[in-house]
């Protein structure tokens, strides 16, 4: 039936993809963890996260855009903290934003929460309802399509990977058309869709390494947008080195038995 697709509208970083109990310590010791904003921390703002998670990075970028100080807590996904299990009992996933006694889950929901609470600067959503609806639609599109199709590029082989490649190319070409000649997806302003999408740009190198697909070639405007975003301090400070993402995925694939 031509009803709306029953795909999730928000996709958090699923736990099952991080079963690397035996190898976690090895991975951690091999990769330098990036400098975190652990300075001070505004009273009562804490982020439970995992360094490579694009979903967690969305939240970090939003907090940075708003100039909010917070305590960063790196989670060991193989041995989740009491705090994580208590603040996200339903999904038990990062990121979780803890603000005072409140906990907020699901990256795009957290980003909108941040925008609504710290509404005095750098609005993440535009003010008119139609533009807001467009922003939410495209952020949801990124959630439904980019992570899923991108993961197929490094997780799968053979025919399944070929299908994933088609899906991924279609996805970024759609984004290319939507971006057009705008500075950001949000127009003049760095907004929700930009925040939703930019963490995946650190994965382009990995996607290409495993599938041969070059975003620069398939979607040059998106590639240029990615470079422009990196000029923003919030993005530059948050995104991991693409080579570190590649190393992480390499080790992770081994634990999944993909090789």
């Amino acid at each position: 039936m031509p009803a709306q697709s029953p795909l999730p509208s928000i996709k958090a970083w699923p736990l099952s993809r991080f079963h690397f109990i035996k190898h976690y310590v090895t991975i951690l010791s091999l990769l330098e963890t990036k400098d975190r904003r652990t300075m001070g921390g505004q009273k009562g703002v804490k982020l439970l996260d995992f360094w490579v998670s694009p979903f967690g990075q969305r939240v970090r970028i939003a907090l940075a855009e708003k100039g909010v100080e917070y305590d960063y807590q790196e989670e060991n996904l193989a041995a989740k903290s009491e705090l994580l299990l208590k603040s996200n009992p339903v999904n038990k996933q990062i990121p979780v934003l803890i603000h005072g006694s409140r906990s907020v889950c699901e990256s795009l929901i957290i980003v909108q929460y941040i925008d609504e609470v710290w509404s005095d600067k750098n609005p993440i959503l535009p003010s008119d309802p139609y533009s807001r609806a467009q922003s939410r639609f495209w952020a949801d599109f990124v959630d439904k399509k980019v992570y899923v199709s991108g993961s197929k590029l490094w997780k799968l082989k053979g025919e399944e990977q070929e299908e994933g490649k088609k899906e991924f190319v279609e996805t970024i070409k759609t984004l290319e058309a939507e971006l057009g000649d705008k500075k950001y997806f949000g127009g003049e302003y760095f907004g929700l869709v930009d925040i939703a999408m930019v963490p995946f740009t650190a994965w382009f190198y990995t996607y290409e390494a495993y599938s041969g697909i070059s975003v620069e070639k398939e979607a040059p405007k998106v590639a240029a947008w990615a470079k422009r975003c990196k000029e923003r301090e919030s993005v530059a400070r948050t995104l991991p080195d693409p080579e570190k993402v590649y190393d992480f995925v390499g080790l992770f694939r081994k634990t999944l038995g993909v090789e």
Partner: protein
Amino acid sequence: MAAAGKEVKLIGSRPSPYVARVRIALHLKGVEYEFLHEEVFGNKSELLLRSNPVYKKIPVLIHGGQPICESLVIVQYIDEVWAASGPAILPADPLDRAVARFWAAYIDDKLGPNCVALALRLGDEASRAESKEQLFAGLQLLDEALGKISNGKSFFGGDAVGFLDIAFGSYLGWLKALEKVEGIKLLDESRFPRLAKWAERFCSAKAATDVIPEPDELVEFVKLLAHR
């Protein structure tokens, strides 16, 4: 006001719970609209393909010629455009909004699709059993959430139907159809007392009048689908 005088059209079909959400939101705000019935079994209309080129799916709200897609995005749009015309659909407090959005996302991820797939008899024995388990687990969580969120009031949204009521209530037709098809009681008062009573209240709410299809209507629809 920006909304005044602009035509409102909704492309949809009765069986779709996602379309139901939009209709309920429009009714809550007293918005008049033209319901453009999209044929379920035929080719997709030119208008649908043009208005939702990304997904080519219903519902699509067309307001003053501009299309808006994705049911929960549309509901929030309606809430914002017609803010002055009816009770707020999303709560005012940012945390309450985040909680409502969280459970709506959970419903769309774990509950609704499972319910529809089960009613449509999709999947093998093993996957259906798993879906049923997930469904019951989800209903349990929602029942508890209702207790916390409603604070003793009639709906998730408090005294009036709100975002989360719409998000879940839109599936009630399919839940009841599934009960008929499987011969089981899902919204069992003994298991999910709060949810069961809430479901009755929701289905009797003015905004939901004539929106949620009767279970028989959906059972018939399922039979028709099976023959295609």
